[in-house]
């Protein structure tokens, strides 16, 4: 058993950190509601529970810094929810900062790095100030970071524990409570047997006993109350009375948290009526029963904070959640398996193309059903990995609020489509680009209030963040009603940075696209908001890495709109199978605009450009795939081959010359680099129905290769 423990502990830790992430996100979301003034007492309770659960787990793993901060945070949360401190905007801001700092501590614990000793000291101090602002004399003792806690003289407490009949059913065990109390000091427990029925009438699930506990401890009342955190009010009546002191005031003493991994200091064998040397403000005799959430509230199971041990602290044992936690690896395995099934199904389909319904009715029907079920299975598996973009969007209100304050701008965030679902991996990849785009809109897009008023707009700018499914892809839009992109400045800047030639003739759209060029940043001064020169090109790259595109639509004076288009999943896509020479390639269907057999009039050779295709007045560069890839036996005459018009990121179009189209097919994306090396012009590979490998073409890379080839050819000709 003991050998297993380190392994088990690390597994529990992983689960704990996952929970922390969820709890922090939940707390942040709730605090955002509180900031808007929409929250109620239940929201405060919810945040309290989040912080409390984090603290509880942290105690179990002995993350002492985390515990210390969480305790301070929790204490001020408790003051808030008990109504003794009002929730002012200042306090709400403080909660946001507290959550951030708590997150810092969680991350530090997770990555096993030490934060500076004074990390979060300002937030700690501010949180403690909340308490000081209470009308009562300041009872909160500031926590000196890392310093030894202040120890009070021992006091005798009398505790009455009257459990309700269902106490045991909620997973609570009085013995464990006693053990926790014993850790606080010296206890003496007297059981009241008066309610005990005869042996035949005993229901083993009921509690018939009640207890009177004498506790001599130097800890504060709050710590004693904490032991009963999950039983008081709901499953047991708890009366905590201080003995031997004059009740001369109201309020409670907020104590310090001692990590229980440390042995409790020996309680002095003080006489019962000992008067403590440090004044402790005694509370009214009856413990607060109210702040404890009702049983039906979604309390996350967690260990009780004060012991961090195995106390079944879950007050919500009756709650059955309809979800389970599954390792991502397992889902990935499932996704892979479905991928294999898709391939096998394609293979069967191919093998039976010669069979007619008349000759093999059952076979054909079976195959059709197989195909139907495969697709359904694939969609269901993908749905497991799907998450609403809400997780992604939830950070936006914070960001907009903080940044607009910092920048002296007024901004309102409107969100839509938060429940649109997309693959988890895509969500992870989207987080940074989205943050950057929102910053960009606030920093560069929205004007200061006076400038907006002068332009006849409302002082408050609007940023819209929206998500939607469109033709098998997810579309995410970030638009603002600001000044738009100043094309002249962009052009000048691009010239200055050497990105383009001053004489270059660019369309408005091409100028707009310049903001995605590497090293481009229009901020006149580098601010800490945006404008570090690693901006939009990184955004575009991140998006492209997950098979997405980003385009900008700019209306100078009225605003800009960034549209991200991403695949719903990274595992399967719809492709067009094309043949060149003896080879077959897959073109992502989303890239294809149209295909045509060029007429002799449509193909031209332009000086310095090379072969082009004229299509409805536009010139499109003709890229011969056989030439780029050195494929033998392909059709070289464009008028006898097919040109597939392919749109790349940023809206560039090329005409890709192939021999023929073989048909549309769903393909499973397989990495080429896992066993080999990236190959230019190829984004990945897939396995076709006949078991052969086909390469998936990367339209953007093909465009660049085509340009380079014709450039080289031009240089060679000169």
């Amino acid at each position, binding site marked *: 058993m003991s050998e297993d423990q380190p392994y088990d502990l690390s597994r529990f830790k992983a689960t704990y950190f996952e929970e922390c992430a969820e709890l922090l996100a939940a707390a942040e979301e709730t605090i955002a509601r509180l900031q808007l003034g929409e929250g109620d007492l239940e929201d405060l309770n919810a945040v309290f529970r989040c912080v409390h659960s984090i603290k509880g787990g942290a105690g179990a793993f002995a993350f002492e810094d985390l515990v210390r901060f969480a305790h301070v945070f929790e204490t001020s949360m408790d003051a808030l929810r008990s109504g003794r401190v009002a929730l002012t905007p200042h306090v709400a801001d403080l909660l946001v900062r507290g959550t951030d700092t708590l997150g810092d501590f969680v991350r530090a614990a997770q990555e096993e790095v030490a934060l500076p000793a004074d990390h979060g000291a300002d937030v700690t101090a501010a949180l403690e100030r909340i308490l000081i602002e209470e009308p009562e004399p300041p009872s909160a003792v500031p926590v000196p970071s890392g310093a030894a806690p202040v120890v009070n003289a021992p006091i005798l407490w009398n505790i009455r524990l009257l459990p309700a009949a269902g106490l045991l059913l909620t997973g609570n065990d009085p013995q464990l409570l006693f053990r926790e109390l014993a850790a606080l000091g010296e206890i003496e427990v007297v059981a009241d047997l008066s309610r005990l029925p005869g042996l035949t009438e005993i229901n083993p699930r009921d509690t018939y006993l009640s207890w009177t506990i004498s506790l001599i401890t130097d800890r504060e009342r709050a710590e004693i109350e904490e032991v009963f955190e999950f039983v008081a009010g709901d499953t047991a009546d708890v009366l905590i009375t201080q003995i031997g002191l004059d009740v001369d005031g109201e309020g409670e003493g907020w104590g310090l948290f001692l990590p229980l991994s440390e042995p409790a200091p020996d309680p002095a064998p003080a006489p019962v009526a000992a008067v403590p040397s440090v004044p402790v403000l005694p509370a009214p005799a009856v413990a607060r029963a109210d702040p404890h959430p009702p049983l039906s509230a979604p309390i996350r199971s967690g260990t009780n904070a004060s012991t961090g041990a195995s106390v079944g602290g879950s007050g919500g044992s009756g709650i059955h959640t309809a979800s389970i936690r599954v390792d991502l690896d397992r889902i990935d395995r499932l996704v892979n398996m479905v991928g294999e099934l898709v391939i096998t199904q394609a293979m069967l389909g191919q093998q039976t193309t010669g069979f007619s319904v008349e000759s093999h009715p059952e076979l054909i029907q079976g195959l059709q059903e197989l195909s139907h079920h495969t697709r359904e299975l694939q969609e269901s598996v993908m749905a497991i990995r799907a998450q609403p973009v809400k997780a992604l969007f939830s950070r936006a209100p914070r960001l907009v609020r903080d940044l607009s304050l910092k920048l002296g701008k007024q901004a309102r965030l409107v969100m839509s489509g938060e429940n649109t679902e997309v693959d988890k991996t895509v969500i992870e990849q989207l987080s940074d680009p989205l943050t950057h785009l929102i910053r960009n809109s606030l920093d560069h897009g929205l004007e200061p209030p006076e400038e907006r008023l002068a332009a006849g707009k409302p002082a408050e700018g609007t940023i819209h963040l929206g998500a939607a499914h469109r033709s098998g892809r997810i579309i995410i839009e970030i638009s603002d009603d600001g000044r738009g992109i100043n094309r002249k400045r962009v052009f000048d800047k691009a010239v200055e940075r050497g990105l383009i030639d001053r004489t270059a003739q660019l369309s408005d759209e091409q100028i707009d696209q310049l903001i995605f060029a590497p090293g481009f940043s229009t901020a006149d001064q580098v601010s800490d908001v945006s404008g570090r020169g690693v901006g939009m090109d990184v955004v575009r790259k991140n998006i492209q890495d997950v098979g997405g595109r980003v385009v900008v639509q700019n209306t100078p004076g009225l605003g800009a709109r960034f549209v991200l288009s991403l695949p719903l999943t990274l595992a399967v896509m719809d492709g067009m199978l094309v043949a060149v020479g003896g080879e077959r390639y897959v073109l992502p269907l989303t890239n294809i605009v149209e295909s045509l057999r060029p007429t002799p009039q449509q193909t031209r050779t332009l000086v310095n450009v090379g072969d082009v295709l004229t299509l409805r007045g536009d010139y499109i560069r003709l890229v011969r795939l056989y030439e780029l890839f050195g*494929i033998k036996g392909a059709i070289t005459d464009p008028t006898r081959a097919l040109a597939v018009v392919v749109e790349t990121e940023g809206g560039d179009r090329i005409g890709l010359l192939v021999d023929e189209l073989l048909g549309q097919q769903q393909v499973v994306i397989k*990495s080429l680099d*896992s066993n080999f090396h990236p190959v230019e*012009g190829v984004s990945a590979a897939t*396995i076709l129905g006949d078991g052969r490998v086909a*390469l998936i073409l990367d339209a953007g890379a093909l465009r660049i290769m085509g340009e380079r080839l014709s450039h080289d050819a031009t240089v060679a000709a000169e």
Partner: protein
Amino acid sequence: MSESSVSESSIRQFISFTIGDEEYGVDIMAIREIKGWTASTELPNTPAYIRGVINLRGAIVPILDLRARFGRGVTATSPRHVIIVVAVGSRVAGILVDAVADILAVSADEIQPPPQIERSDIGFLTGLVTVDGRMVALLDLDHVFAFDDLDLTDGVAAA
């Protein structure tokens, strides 16, 4: 049992195979499977010794033509040719050879360092061993599959 385990520790097993008249050996622990030649999908703009990729039960596995890697021309493949699938680090790759020859048990002190002679494959060898009068060259797989420093742009010239 105890006697054999002492000698086992110093004995390594190799699978030997032929390319033309030469015999080569690969540590048996690196070998995942041996299969007949199946048509591969060519990778554009790669050196001639990269024979493309095949589907190995759902994984995309590159195939390396060992004869071409040693600069002795591209193998004219037939169904009789053999792919030896090996694991190199975390990667899986196949090597195309003419035929599998033998399983060799070689004790460590029998392995000679590669001689300082002119041989086109000398850089890819870890040692030589003589078995029944035949000389078997032992392959340095890490070097054979050093794809990371592979410069794909000038690979076409090798063809």
